[in-house]
């Protein structure tokens, strides 16, 4: 059942999806203070491996050494070249700049400076890389650009943090990493994944149609929401999971679960698949989505698990790439409509899509923007006051 009983209004004005000024506000108030998942431990299989990312325009390098993951600004302290520009690679003991071969240790301190004497006078440890706080939850690597941020556990909350430990445990294998660019405002992507109403039109082959209301449950918390689709009574969906759970050896729960930590960290679980989706704005009109999809093939080390892992990874990659591709194809078109200076009368969020309402509420509150009031009286009169109350649970 849904929480609300009547439809709600669309509350964000077109310019909140298009204006660079608004994005700047979102950046300052919503994104910069928070934690962002920039990858997963399987992205760094060996000690000394690194990958580079751009987060909100800042070039970052994430490097594993001594079993720990460190994140630095990918800019050399010497004459500001990028340390590395490959998407990933192997460094060994020290992080070495590609330009003049300066070397850094895991604290970002300089270790070796070729022809160091020509830099005299320079005290030891005077120069170093800019380091960012990095933490992991399960196998997910999170980073914050904000020195004063609370810890990751506090940011996610106990429930989500512990859930990450379970959903992305060392027994989970990375099925596929997907990094994809979307030609739309980041909120279009978030609003899209918050509702299953579009399944019938956009994913008819992958998912069929949206589930019955009786199977759905929404929960709203201060910083996150929770959607559960209980399909235990639908044999078409429950049967495959029952069979797979017996083969793999885990307790089936017959639930599709989906969570959003506002504003942009999305978690999902479907049978033995779990995933994280980070939606990162690049500009007002473009965004980047990073997906890390995991599967659980059974306890690590068994031959059966290895064989199952191969099959699950193959299927997971195929299925998720298709679904993500179907959404990607339609985003620019949705965005052009939302960004249109003219709108027809309307703008409704159905109870089935009610997760969008608190998300928009969060955006408005954090950026202190005015709510978009439709000019059409007729609709306003028909509309009853929406329920904004939150429920406890989860």
């Amino acid at each position: 059942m849904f929480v609300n009983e009547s439809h709600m209004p669309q509350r964000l004005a077109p310019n909140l999806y298009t204006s660079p000024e608004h994005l700047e506000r979102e950046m300052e108030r919503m994104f910069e203070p928070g934690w962002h998942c920039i990858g997963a431990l399987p992205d760094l299989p060996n000690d000394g491996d690194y990958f580079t990312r751009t987060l909100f325009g800042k070039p970052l390098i994430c490097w594993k050494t001594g079993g720990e993951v460190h994140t630095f600004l990918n800019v050399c302290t010497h004459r500001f070249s990028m340390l590395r520009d490959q998407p990933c690679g192997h460094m060994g003991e020290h992080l070495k700049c590609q330009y003049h071969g300066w070397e850094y240790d895991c604290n970002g301190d300089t270790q070796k400076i070729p022809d160091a004497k020509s830099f005299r006078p320079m005290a030891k440890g005077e120069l170093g890389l800019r380091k960012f706080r990095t933490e992991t939850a399960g196998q997910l690597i999170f980073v914050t650009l904000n020195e004063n941020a609370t810890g990751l556990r506090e940011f996610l909350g106990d429930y989500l943090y512990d859930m990450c430990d379970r959903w992305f445990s060392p027994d989970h294998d990375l099925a596929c990493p997907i990094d994809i660019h979307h030609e739309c405002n980041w909120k279009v992507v978030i609003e899209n994944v918050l509702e299953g109403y579009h399944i019938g039109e956009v994913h008819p082959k992958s998912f069929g149609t949206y589930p019955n209301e009786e199977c759905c449950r929404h929960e709203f918390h201060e910083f996150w929401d929770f959607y559960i689709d209980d399909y235990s009574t639908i044999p078409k969906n429950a049967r495959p999971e029952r069979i797979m759970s017996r083969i793999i050896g885990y307790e089936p729960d017959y639930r599709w679960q989906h969570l959003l930590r506002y504003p942009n960290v999305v978690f999902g679980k479907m049978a033995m698949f779990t995933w994280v989706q980070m939606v990162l704005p690049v500009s007002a009109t473009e965004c980047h989505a990073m997906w890390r999809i995991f599967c659980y093939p059974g306890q690590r080390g068994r031959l059966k698990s290895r064989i199952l892992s191969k099959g699950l990874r193959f299927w997971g990659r195929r299925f998720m790439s298709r679904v993500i591709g179907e959404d990607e194809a339609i985003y620019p078109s949705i965005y052009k409509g939302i960004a249109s200076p003219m709108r027809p009368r309307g703008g409704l969020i159905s109870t089935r899509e009610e997760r969008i309402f608190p998300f928009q509420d969060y955006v408005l509150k954090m950026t202190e923007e005015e709510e978009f009031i439709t000019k059409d009286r007729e609709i306003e009169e028909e509309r009853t006051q929406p329920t904004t109350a939150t429920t406890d649970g989860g």
Partner: protein
Amino acid sequence: MFINETHLPQVLTPQDYTSEEQYRRELDRLFLPGWHCIATFSDFPQDGDYITTELFDHPLILWRSGDEYHAFLNVCPHRFSRLQGKSCGHAGERLQCQYHGWEFDCTGNTQKIPDAQSFKPMAKGALGLTKYRTETCGQLIFITLNDEAPSLQEYLGAGFEIGEKLCAADRRLATTLDYVIDTNWKCKCENSVESYHVDMVHPATFRKSPDANECKHELEPGWTTYATVQAPPTAWHRLLDRIVNRLTHSERDDEYKHYHFYPHIMFGKMKLFSWMEMMIPLSPGRTRVIGKFFCYGGRSGRLVSRLLTRGLAKWETGFFETLRDEDCTVLEEVYRGLSAPNQPSEGLVSIREERCFHFQKYIERITSPETVNSEGVAMVADS
């Protein structure tokens, strides 16, 4: 002969071509109130076909239902997705949104809402698409974003009859040229209304610009024309003309005539060919040009007409594509020159280019900052 006897001044300043303010004024006073041709009947071969386009940032969808053409804002009233993203397609009896499958009828009212109960409470017919007026002129389909616009016939004035004749139903659409040039829309208009550049820009396509005494200009408030007689240059051309005229049962007609109906609609005719061209500004330095080119290959239904039409269409397409390419190159240079911080002089308009002067006067009159908006609109209607 030309109407003026001495050269004329360049009326518009470079800023009138490059500034954002002037662009906004032109949009408000000239374009948003007016009518625009966005399609022809040939774009809708089947009942239920649609096309999508954009006019002044408004996403639009034009849909054929029966023999009627309905234009809507291409935005769904649900959560404002575009209804359709493809440039053309088939919708059938109802227009359906690609995102959540809402369906609309030809009045724009919602017909089917999947899982409608989750939208309670909602009165029937409470939501609908934003509809725009459409009208036709010959085979051309026009749309206006302005509910208070005069009828298309009133808007085009003398141009309506010309359009009906030159884009009549018995003509075949040879090609549509829909392209974007990095130039101001007025540069493109001025280029089209003067033949002075022909020798430099189109030496192979047009041979030579005609003598002054072979040219005839008409300068009316709100529109201008240019006519010249182009006799076949060689005996071979004369013979070809005679054969084609015989086959299509048409009279010999050597007149080339070009019409400019202010601000942005042009018609032209040359022998068995005719066309409509329209400029849509996208920004001060970007212009979308939509050209619809027609030819007449004789009464329909005959094999010889079909073959002839195909041949004429092919020749016409090649000819106008070459012209477009030649003009695009030079028009981008013109705009770069206009955008320079300094100009060598105030500029000069020859009597051969007097239609440019007339057009510039019109723009100056309607967009001068002193003219208030309502007057501007009124003046458009008058002309």
